[in-house]
C-alpha cells in the first residue's frame, strides 16, 4: 500500500463541496468557530500500521480451519450436548458414538462393501451423465441445429424433480442397478448440459471476431477461444452435476436397496439404530464435500488466468 501525503493545495482544490462546512456568515467573524476537521484517509504499509491487541490476536488465529470452522464448531457443541444428556442417543447420538459405530461396521465387514457399491453406482452414473451432458452441451452450444435438438427437452427435464421420475424409472427399468445408475446419470446430465450450453453461448463475441481476423481456423477457434472461455461455466456445471448425482444416489438407494449406503440407512431406521443412520448421512456428507473440494481444486488450476475477488 502507498502513503498519501497530505497536501493542502490538493485537498483545497479537490475537496467536494458537500464535505466542506457551510460558510460562516461574513458579518459575524468573532463567533466563527474553527472549521471541523475534514475526513481524511492515510494509507501506509501493512507492517507500519498500528494494530489493536484484538486485531493482532485475530490475525494470529487466521482461521486455521478455513471453511470447516462452522462444521467443526457444530460438532463440538453437538458432542457436548450429547454427553450432557440433552440430546437422547436415539434422536441424535454423539459424534464420537457415530465414529465408533462406523469403525464397528467397518470391522464387521458391512461398511466397506456397502461404500464400494455406492461409489461404483455414483461413478458409473456420473460418467454416463457427464458424458452425455458434455457431448450434447458442446453440440448444442456450437451449432444452432444442436440447440434446436436438445434445448427444449433439457429445459423440460430441468423442471422435473429427480425424485418424481424415480417411480417411472422403477416401472421401466425395474428395481435393480440400472434404475439407480440412470437416476444418478439424470441428475448429473441436466445441470451439465444447461451450464455448458450457456457458457459456450456466453463467450465474448469480440474475442471470437478477433480470432477470425487472425486467420485462426474453426478448430483453433473452438480449442483456444470457445472451450477455455466456457471453462468457468463448465466448472459451475460440474459442481451442480456432482451435487445432484449424490442427491440421485440417495434417492435411488433409499428405494429397495439390498446393499449400499442407502441400505445401511434404511436398515438402521427399521431397527431403530439411529447411530447407523447417522453413519450413512455422514458418509453422504463427506462424499458431497469431497466432490466440492475436487471442483474447487480444478478451478484453482484451470482458472488461474482469471482475476477474481479475494475476500478479506
Amino acid at each position, binding site marked *: 500500500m502507498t502513503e498519501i501525503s497530505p497536501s493542502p493545495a490538493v485537498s483545497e482544490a479537490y475537496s467536494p463541496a458537500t464535505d466542506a462546512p457551510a460558510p460562516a456568515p461574513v458579518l459575524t467573524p468573532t463567533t466563527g468557530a474553527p472549521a471541523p476537521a475534514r475526513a481524511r484517509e492515510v494509507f501506509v504499509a501493512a507492517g507500519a500500521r498500528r494494530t489493536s491487541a484484538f486485531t493482532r490476536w485475530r490475525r494470529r488465529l487466521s482461521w486455521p480451519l478455513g471453511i470447516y470452522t462452522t462444521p467443526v464448531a457444530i460438532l463440538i457443541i453437538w458432542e457436548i450436548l450429547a454427553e450432557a444428556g440433552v440430546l437422547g442417543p436415539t434422536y441424535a447420538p454423539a459424534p464420537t458414538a457415530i465414529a465408533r459405530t462406523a469403525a464397528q461396521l467397518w470391522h464387521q465387514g458391512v461398511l466397506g462393501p456397502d461404500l464400494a457399491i455406492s461409489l461404483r453406482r455414483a461413478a458409473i452414473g456420473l460418467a454416463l451423465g457427464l458424458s452425455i451432458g458434455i457431448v450434447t452441451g458442446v453440440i448444442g452450444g456450437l451449432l444452432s441445429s444442436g440447440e434446436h435438438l436438445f434445448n427444449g427437452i433439457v429445459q423440460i427435464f430441468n423442471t422435473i424433480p429427480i425424485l418424481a421420475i424415480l417411480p417411472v424409472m422403477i416401472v421401466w427399468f425395474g428395481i435393480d442397478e440400472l434404475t439407480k445408475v440412470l437416476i444418478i446419470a439424470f441428475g448429473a446430465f441436466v445441470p451439465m448440459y444447461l451450464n455448458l450450453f450457456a457458457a459456450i453461448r456466453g463467450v465474448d463475441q469480440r474475442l471470437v471476431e478477433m480470432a477470425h481476423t*487472425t486467420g485462426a481456423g474453426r478448430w483453433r477457434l473452438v480449442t483456444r477461444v470457445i472451450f477455455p472461455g466456457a471453462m468457468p461455466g463448465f466448472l459451475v456445471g460440474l459442481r451442480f452435476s456432482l451435487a445432484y448425482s449424490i442427491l440421485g444416489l440417495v434417492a435411488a438407494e433409499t428405494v429397495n436397496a439390498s446393499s449400499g449406503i442407502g441400505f445401511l440407512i434404511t436398515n438402521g431406521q427399521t431397527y431403530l439404530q439411529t447411530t447407523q443412520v447417522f453413519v450413512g448421512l455422514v458418509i453422504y456428507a463427506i462424499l458431497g464435500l469431497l466432490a466440492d473440494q475436487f471442483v474447487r481444486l480444478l478451478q484453482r488450476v484451470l482458472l488461474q488466468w482469471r482475476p477474481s475477488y479475494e475476500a478479506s
Partner: protein
Amino acid sequence: MSTVSVTPPRQQAGALVDDVVRRFGDRVVLDHLYLTIADEELVVLLGPSGCGKTTLLRLMAGLDGPDGGTVEVPARRAIVFQGDRLLPWQRALRNVTLGLHGPDAEQRARDALAEVGLAGRERAWPKELSGGEAQRVALARALVSHPELVLLDEPFAALDAITRRRMHNLVRTLRRQHHAAMLLVTHDVDEAIALADRIVVMSQGRIDTSRPVTLSAADREASVSREDLRAALLADLGLADQH
C-alpha cells in the same frame, strides 16, 4: 462475413474501396465512398465519432459485407482493435500464435513480441500487463503474420499521452521493417500528423478531403507547415472557428 467475389482484382497491392454503401436500417452510414491505399502507404482516416470510420474499417477487414460497391483488400491482412482483445486465458505468447501454424510459429511469435519491446514477457497473463503492454501484444499478434494490409481502429485511444507517444515511435519503427499498407483510424489530429503519409477526412459517410503529408520527422513535431496542416484539418472537421 462478406462474400468473396470472383471478379479479378483491379490492383495488385494496397487496398481499394470503390463506391461502397453501407446502411443500418434507414441510416446510410457509408454513402458511395471511395478510398485507395497504395502499397506500403500509411493512410490516416480522421473523422468525428459516429461518422462511420469503424464501419469502413470492418468492411475492409471482411467482418461485415457492403450493401453496395466493392471492397478489394489483400487476403493477408490484420486488424488491431480499439481494445486489446487479448484472450485472458492464454499467456502473451499463445495470444500471438493464435493464427499461426507450422513448427516455427512459436519462434516467430517470440520475435514479434521482441519487436514490440516485450521480450521476456512471453509467459505473462493478460491481467498482468499494463494497458500499453497489452496493446503492444495486440500489435505483435497483428504483425506476426506479415500482413500486406494492417487496419488499426483507434488502437491508442485508451492509452495515456506518454504511452501513446511511445506507441507512435513504435509504429514508425515497425513500418521500416514491415512493408505493409496501413489504415489507421483516429479522431486525434495530432496523432494523424505524427504518423500519416496521407490524411483523409471523413464526414457524413464520405471522404471529402485527402491531404498528403510530406513533412520530415522533425517538422511533424513542430513547424509552421505543421500548424498550417493542423489548422486545415481542423477546418475540414468543422472545428476551425474554435481554434
